[in-house]
């Protein structure tokens, strides 16, 4: 079949559905309807947020002491945040709503060694983090100044995950200062996606490190996951610096000047795309992925969710979609001049 573009595909779907014979309105209107006394399992409205759910559990619980007790246990056991600390050993820490540790999971063999003597059950996250850092230092994973630590926190509640990043970051800094160590400490509050989870599992790295790699790839799609996953964090940062990725865009380094020194280098020109056919453009150069992303992020500072170089009759343009502050931006750039061809905000 011919090569369809997205718009055409969507149109075909719409046409198909529009043609479907749906002739049920009269049937519905002729039904004798019995009004329900209360919602059943079918019509129950999903609660607005987890807070409402907890509140409703609570009001039930207030009625019976047993319930209250159960709820407490429930609350202590329920995972709330996931915290990842990567040096090269990677550990995953799960905490409950009270920020007590309920699970400590080594991601790789090196990490198993690090955590094997750590008692974590029911201890506060700060204490456990401190013990992990001690153990990392004892095992010589943090010795050189250019060792890199990556702290990642996931919580459904963005505010909470930011707060935890801050607090755990402070804990780690303090511990490192006490031991006169000065590695580069990067921190991020992360989003959850099945793909990142899957890849993390597949390659045996933490979700935190995988998120970092994913973000590198978003900023430079020529990077390959397989080539990055086995590299150490310091190597990943070297690579990012070498190819001109602005690390501050994907991670918080706490303005560590070892990271944030602006790298002013000519942007790599990426002309792989126009060497097969078109003659007109042979002499012209594409502005390159990185430049295109910079222009796009200049228009909408958010997360690039789609990035494509599109060819239409020998004419190249970058199509970029960015999500920022809950809005979706569609941006099209002339691939040779960087001129903004389209800038749409979707609300």
């Amino acid at each position: 079949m011919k090569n369809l573009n997205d718009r055409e595909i969507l149109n075909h779907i719409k046409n198909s559905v529009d043609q479907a014979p749906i002739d049920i309105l009269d049937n519905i209107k002729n039904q004798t309807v019995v009004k329900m006394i209360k919602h059943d399992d079918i019509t129950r409205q999903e609660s607005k947020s987890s807070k409402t759910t907890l509140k409703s559990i609570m009001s039930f619980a207030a009625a019976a002491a047993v319930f209250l007790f159960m709820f407490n246990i429930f609350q202590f056991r329920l995972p709330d945040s996931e915290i990842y600390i990567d040096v090269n050993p990677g550990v995953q820490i799960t905490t409950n709503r009270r920020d007590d540790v309920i699970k400590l999971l080594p991601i790789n063999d090196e990490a198993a060694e690090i955590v094997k003597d750590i008692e974590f059950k029911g201890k506060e996250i700060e204490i456990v983090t401190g013990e992990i850092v001690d153990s990392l230092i004892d095992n010589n994973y943090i010795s050189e100044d250019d060792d890199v630590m990556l702290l990642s926190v996931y919580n459904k509640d963005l505010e909470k995950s930011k707060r935890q990043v801050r607090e755990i970051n402070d804990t780690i800094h303090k511990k490192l200062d006490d031991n006169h160590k000065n590695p580069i400490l990067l921190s991020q509050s992360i989003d959850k996606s099945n793909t990142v989870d899957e890849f993390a599992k597949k390659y045996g790295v933490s979700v935190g490190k995988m998120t970092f790699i994913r973000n590198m790839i978003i900023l430079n799609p020529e990077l390959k996951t397989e080539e990055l996953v086995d590299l150490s964090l310091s190597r990943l940062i070297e690579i990012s610096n070498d190819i001109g990725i602005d690390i501050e865009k994907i991670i918080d380094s706490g303005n560590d000047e070892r990271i944030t020194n602006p790298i002013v280098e000519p942007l790599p020109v990426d002309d792989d795309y126009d060497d097969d056919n078109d003659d007109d453009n042979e002499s012209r150069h594409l502005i390159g992925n990185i430049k295109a992303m910079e222009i796009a992020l200049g228009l909408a500072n958010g997360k690039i969710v789609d990035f494509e170089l599109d060819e239409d009759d020998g004419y190249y343009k970058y199509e970029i979609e960015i999500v920022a502050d809950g809005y979706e931006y569609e941006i099209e750039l002339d691939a040779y001049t960087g001129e903004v061809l389209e800038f749409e905000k979707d609300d």
Partner: protein
Amino acid sequence: MLLFTMVMNDEPNNLKQNNIDEKLFKRIADNDMQALEELYHLTERTLYAYLLSIVKNHDETLDIMQQTYIKIMSSAHLYKPQGKPLAWIFTIAKNLHLSNLRKGKKEIYLDSDEISNNAKFSYITNNDDKIVLETVLKILDQEERKIVMLYAVSGLKHREIAESIGLKLSTTLSKYHRALKKIRKHLIEGGEGYEEFK
């Protein structure tokens, strides 16, 4: 500011979805048939697209649609406005489908997975339309189908789709793009489905 935390910001909850005025439910509760018709016309194709992406069968989709609207009529007086009317309609439709599955009602539509049975979409006159729909139903997973079908049919924005099917905007968008890539690739390579309709 971290680049990728920005998308986690909470979305405003007061979006109009498919322009359904939540007051319609109140009127339906008062047996206002015109309100029911309004709701029906606003949501007919959207609900069809949603259900078709779940059950992949025209007749079964119609059956559940009908049950859904009837269920709305019998429970509209219980509806609490939360700014997500479409999400509620979808929830009812999905629950009805699950409940049908549990009751074994599925047997009526024996071959709902057999997409190759082209009699099922025989009402689609344009061959390309049919091939694309078949491709969507055949190669995408359920979430991808919902996202692509709703986007194509409903006129909803990605963020509204995300809200109504309970996914994050960023997840919805990346699934949407992956799904369209899959479709394009499949159409170019000409999967088995293609030969049958040539």
